[in-house]
């Protein structure tokens, strides 16, 4: 049997009598980039939280050989970047990146030289040397995203969990952040699991896609296999055109529905 760094079987999360995640099976190979797609509320963030051990779940999670690992083991293996990370006021870039070293420092100790070196290596890798004494709030959105990635890199976990890393960015910065993730993945041999709304970007960057719908995996495979007009119609309830490019998907174009075109949006202020 092949060993996967991250695997889950029959992972189920219930909250308030509702199943947020239902018997999800997951296997991610080392160095792979897995994209989690699916409409809002499909369970992408819940899946992250279940892998991180932050929600109670049934089923089994295996992370780097450890079955249902403890908090520290998870923190050593998984670096999590939430959709809206908290950027503490008046904290500098260097201080924030150093927080990534938390799992490596025993409870009441302070950082070792090794921790400081790892943090400054991460700052360098994300080209933040000039920014390192600036306060987080003074950075632009793209710079903040780089700082957050730097914290994840400083954590030296082998897998990055990225929840919508590009949600707040313009298309230029979306591309540059994803290219950066790709470069770091290749340079450092990282595994990446990212939730991503933009299906075109998902097709272009991810090796494999997992389509979640109402807490279940409804499609899994290459972009070509998952991003079909049928799947997008069934699970996003959107008519779309999928542009192919040789053996891959080049773009997913959502179409305005015909009803929408026939019934124009009523004007906001009606004439007297």
């Amino acid at each position, binding site marked *: 049997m092949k060993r996967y760094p991250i695997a889950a079987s029959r992972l189920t999360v219930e909250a308030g009598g509702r199943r947020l995640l239902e018997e999800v099976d997951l296997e991610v190979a080392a160095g792979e980039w897995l994209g989690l797609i699916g409409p809002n509320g499909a369970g992408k963030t819940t899946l992250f939280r279940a892998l991180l051990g932050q929600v109670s779940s049934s089923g089994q999670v295996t992370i780097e050989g450890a079955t249902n690992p403890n908090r520290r083991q998870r923190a050593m293996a998984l670096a999590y970047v939430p959709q809206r990370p908290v950027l503490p006021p008046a904290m500098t870039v260097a201080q924030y990146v150093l*927080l990534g070293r938390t799992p490596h420092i025993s409870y*009441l100790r302070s950082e070792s030289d090794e921790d400081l070196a790892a943090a400054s290596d991460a700052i360098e890798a994300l080209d933040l040397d000039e920014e390192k004494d600036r306060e987080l709030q003074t950075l632009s959105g793209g710079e903040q995203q780089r700082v957050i990635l730097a914290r994840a890199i400083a954590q030296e976990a082998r897998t990055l969990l990225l929840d919508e890393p590009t949600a707040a960015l313009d298309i230029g910065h979306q591309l540059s952040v994803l290219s950066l993730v790709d470069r770091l993945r290749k340079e450092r041999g990282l595994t990446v699991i990212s939730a991503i709304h933009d299906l075109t970007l998902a097709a272009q960057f991810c090796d494999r896609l997992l389509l979640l719908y109402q807490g279940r995996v409804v499609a899994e495979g290459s972009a070509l296999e998952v991003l079909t007009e049928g799947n997008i119609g069934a699970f996003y309830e959107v008519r779309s055109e999928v542009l192919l490019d040789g053996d891959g998907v080049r773009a997913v174009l959502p179409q305005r529905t015909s009803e929408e075109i026939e019934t124009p949006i009523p004007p906001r202020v009606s004439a007297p």
Partner: protein
Amino acid sequence: MLGFLTLIGAAMAGVVLGPADLHPWQVIAALVDRLPGIDLTSDLGPRQLDIIWDLRLPRVVLGALVGATLAVCGAAYQGVFRNPLVDPYLLGVAAGAGLGATLIFAGAAARTELVPIAAFVGAVGAVVITYLVGRRLGERTSATLVLAGVAVASFLTAAQTFVQQRSAGDLRIVYSWILGRLSAGWSDVRLILPYVLVAGFAILLHRRLLDVLAVGESEAESLGLPVARVRLIVVVAATLGTAAAVAVSGLIGFVGIVVPHTVRLLAGNSYRAVLPLSLLFGGAFMIATDLAARTLVAPAELPIGVVTAFFGAPFFLSLLRRRPVSV
């Protein structure tokens, strides 16, 4: 460094100045004389030496302990709850202590030596109730705990007011206790020293972890931080420290909010700086306000809680004007 100098300066002023007309140099000479290996004559009579050793010095030491504790515990609570407006009385410490003290004043007025113990028990008891109620309410997030604290505090304050109204004769004593005062004498210092030392030590040990907590509970947890444990230890330590301080000094307000924020404005938000500096400046601030409390209208004394707010509030506002506070 600046913090140390401020504390030492304030302590010197606290010992040297006072209504009994002693010459500052004589006092300093008397103090230095006690140091091993140094022999200075201070020309002070035994009665004056007693004033220094048994009245002023213990009061300064007590002020430093109470001020440092309230400031550090305030900073710790602000860190745990990630809320700049939190003060050390948040989880019901003040209301519980007030009820405990009032019960003694009203029910066993002859035994006022029990007041600190009753206040301490009341303070700790209130926080325990808050914690249990907060847990029963479901999700163990800090927000539920804070709201439970508000409810418990209101309830206990109502109970205290009720007891107080039933024994109107003690109103004045209770009132002056609530406004806070520092006693002179070593017994109070001995009483609280173990608690404040343990509390201060435990909180300072967690200074790095409070910085990690600044990214929020969920992210801190994903970084491997045992959030619930850190929160419990820091809250227990801060509660013990605050309860001990309140037990001997009454409800001195404002120190737990103003001192940590002043430190943040001067030295940044990292708890590695905020906690130790709060300790030093809190002690210095309390000595200075106590000095004002007992000299401004000498030979009478002002309640120290009035002085901390009267001078602290405008000072704090002037700092805020220069830079808005954030946590």
